C-alpha cells in the first residue's frame, strides 16, 4: 500500500487558490521531497493530509485512511512543523511525556536516546530555550513514538550545521529501519541529499514529479575550462553545446549529449584546468520555475 495517496486534492480559500488538483503517491520506504516557492501550496497540502484543514474536493490518505475520518492513523505519523510552539511553563521532559501519552507505548528510552543525539536538556523550561533548541524539542517530539511516516516541514531552519548533520543521520537511520519520509523544504541541497523522488509545486499545482536520479540524468553538465592558449571560437561548435562563452583562455558552457564527443575535444586541447559538474537541484529547480508554464 502507498504510505501517502493524494488524489485530485483541491483546496480553495474563498476566492484565493490554495491547491488545485494535486495528485501523487508516496511509496513505502521512500524519502519523498516536496519543493515549491512560498505560497505555492506546500503547507496547504500537508495540513490537508494531516486533517488540520478540510479539502474542497479530492482525497488525501495516509496508509489508506483519511486523518479526519480515522484519527487513529496518526499514531504512525510524526509531524515536524516549520514553527514550533508549546504550552507555557512546561519543562521539556513534561511536554515530551505529554506527547508520548497519546501513543499508548512506552517512549521513555527513545526520548532519552533522541535527546542525547540532539543534545537537548530535558530539564529546562521550554520558555527559556532558544529558537534552535525549541526546534530540537520539535524534532524529538515528532520522532519519539517511532512513527512509520515522518512528515517534515522545513525541519532544519534554526539548527546549527552540526545539529543539521545529526538530524539528517537520524532521518536516514529511521528510513533504514523502514520509516517513510515526506520532506518539504526550501533548502534544495538537503532534498537532494536525502530524497529519492521529488515533486515540484508551483501556484497550487504539481508541475513535475521525478526520480532524483532521472532529474540529474536528463540534465546537462556544466563545463568550465581554462586552456593553455587562447581558445578558438569554433573549437566547441558541437551539437549539444549551449550557452557557450569564450573569453580568451576560458570557456564556459553547458552540454547535453554523448560525453565521449566532448572528451575527444578535451584530449586534443592543452588544458590548464577543467571542471565538470552536475547542475545542482537549485539550478534544475530554477529552470522549472522560470520556464515552465503552468
Amino acid at each position, binding site marked *: 500500500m502507498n504510505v501517502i495517496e493524494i488524489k485530485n486534492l483541491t483546496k480553495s480559500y474563498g476566492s484565493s487558490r490554495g491547491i488545485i488538483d494535486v495528485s501523487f503517491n508516496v511509496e513505502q520506504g521512500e524519502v519523498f521531497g516536496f519543493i515549491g516557492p512560498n505560497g505555492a501550496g506546500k*503547507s496547504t497540502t500537508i*495540513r490537508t493530509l*494531516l*486533517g*488540520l*484543514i478540510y479539502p474542497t474536493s479530492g482525497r488525501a490518505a495516509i496508509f489508506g485512511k483519511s486523518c479526519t475520518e480515522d484519527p487513529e492513523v496518526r499514531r504512525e505519523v510524526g509531524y515536524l512543523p516549520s*514553527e514550533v*510552539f*508549546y504550552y507555557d511553563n512546561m519543562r521539556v521532559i513534561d511536554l515530551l511525556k505529554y506527547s508520548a501519552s497519546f501513543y499508548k507505548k512506552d517512549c521513555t528510552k527513545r526520548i532519552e536516546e533522541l535527546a542525547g543525539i540532539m543534545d537537548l536538556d530535558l530539564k529546562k523550561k521550554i520558555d527559556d530555550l532558544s529558537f534552535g533548541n525549541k526546534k530540537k524539542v520539535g524534532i524529538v*517530539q515528532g520522532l519519539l513514538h517511532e512513527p512509520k511516516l515522518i512528515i517534515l516541514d522545513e525541519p532544519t531552519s534554526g539548527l546549527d550545521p552540526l545539529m543539521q548533520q545529526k538530524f539528517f543521520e537520524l532521518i536516514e537511520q529511521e528510513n533504514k529501519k523502514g520509516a517513510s519520509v515526506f520532506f518539504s523544504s526550501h533548502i534544495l541541497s538537503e532534498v537532494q541529499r536525502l530524497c529519492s523522488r521529488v515533486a515540484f509545486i508551483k501556484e497550487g499545482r504539481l508541475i513535475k514529479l521525478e526520480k532524483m536520479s532521472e532529474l540529474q540524468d536528463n540534465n546537462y553538465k556544466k563545463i568550465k575550462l581554462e586552456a593553455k592558449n587562447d581558445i578558438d571560437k569554433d573549437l566547441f561548435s558541437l551539437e549539444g553545446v549551449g550557452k557557450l562563452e569564450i573569453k580568451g583562455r576560458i570557456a564556459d558552457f553547458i552540454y547535453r549529449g554523448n560525453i565521449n564527443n566532448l572528451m575527444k575535444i578535451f584530449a586534443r586541447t592543452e588544458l590548464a584546468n577543467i571542471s565538470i559538474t552536475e547542475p545542482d537541484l537549485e539550478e534544475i529547480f530554477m529552470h522549472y520555475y522560470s520556464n515552465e508554464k503552468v
Partner: protein
Amino acid sequence: MNIYKHELKTLLKSTIIWALSMTALALIYFSVFPGIAEDAEEFKKLLGGYSPSIRALLSISLDNITSILGFYSMIFSFITLCGAIQAMNYGMSVLSRETRERTADFLLVKPVSRSKIVSAKVLAAFTMLLFTDALYYVSAFVMANLVKTSDYSNKLFLMLNLTLLFIQLIFLAVGLLVSVFFNKLKTVLPVSLGVVFGFYILGALLVTGENVAARYFAPFKYFDYNYILKNGSFDGVYLVISALIIAAAVTASYLIYTKKDIHAVS
C-alpha cells in the same frame, strides 16, 4: 485521560484565585451582617426608602432581609456575577487556547479525534467550576454559621448556592460557542466581561418591569432567590430552559469545532 489532566493543571491556578476571591467577597459581606442584624429595624427602614424596582434588582425582600438567608440572597447575586465571569472565561479559553498559544499543530495532529479533545477540555472546565463552587460553598457555610442570629435551613442555603453552578454552566456553554466562531481569538477576558456584564445589566433592566417574556433573556434572573426561599424549589421552567441552552450551545460547539479548518500560525 491525558488531555483532561493537562487541562486541569492549566486551570488550577486560576481556579484557586477565583475561589479565594469569591470567598473574600462573601467574607466582607458576612462581616457586615452582625451589625445589620443588631439594628434590624433601622436597616429595614433604610431599605424601605429605596424604590421597589431597585429592591427587586438586588433581590431584596423586606420580609426576610435581616435573616441570614434573606441577607445572603442580596449579596449572592454579586458572587454569581464573579462565578459567571470565571465560567465564561473558561468556556472561551479552553478551545481557543490552542490557537492563541499556537499549539494547535501539536495537539490536533495527535491520534485523537477533535470531539474527544472538546470533551476532555469541557469536562476539565466543568470539574474546575465544581471545585471552585465546592470550596466556596464550604467557606460560605462556615461563615454563615458563624454570623447567624437564628438557625436557618441548610437545604435552602444549598439550593441558593446551587444557582451559582447553574448559571456558571450556562456561561461556560455560551463561552465555548462564542470561541469556536472565531479563528483568531487574541484576548478572552474583555469579551467575557462584556458579555457577562451585558447580561447582568440586561437582567436588571428587564425584570423590573412586568414583562414575563423578558426574563428569558436574563440568565441572571432565571433563579429567583425569593421564590426558592418561599417554595423550597427551583422554578422548573427555567431549569429546563437552562438545560436546553447548555445542550444547544455545547452541541453546536462540537459540530463547529470538528469541521473547522485550523490554519497555520502567523
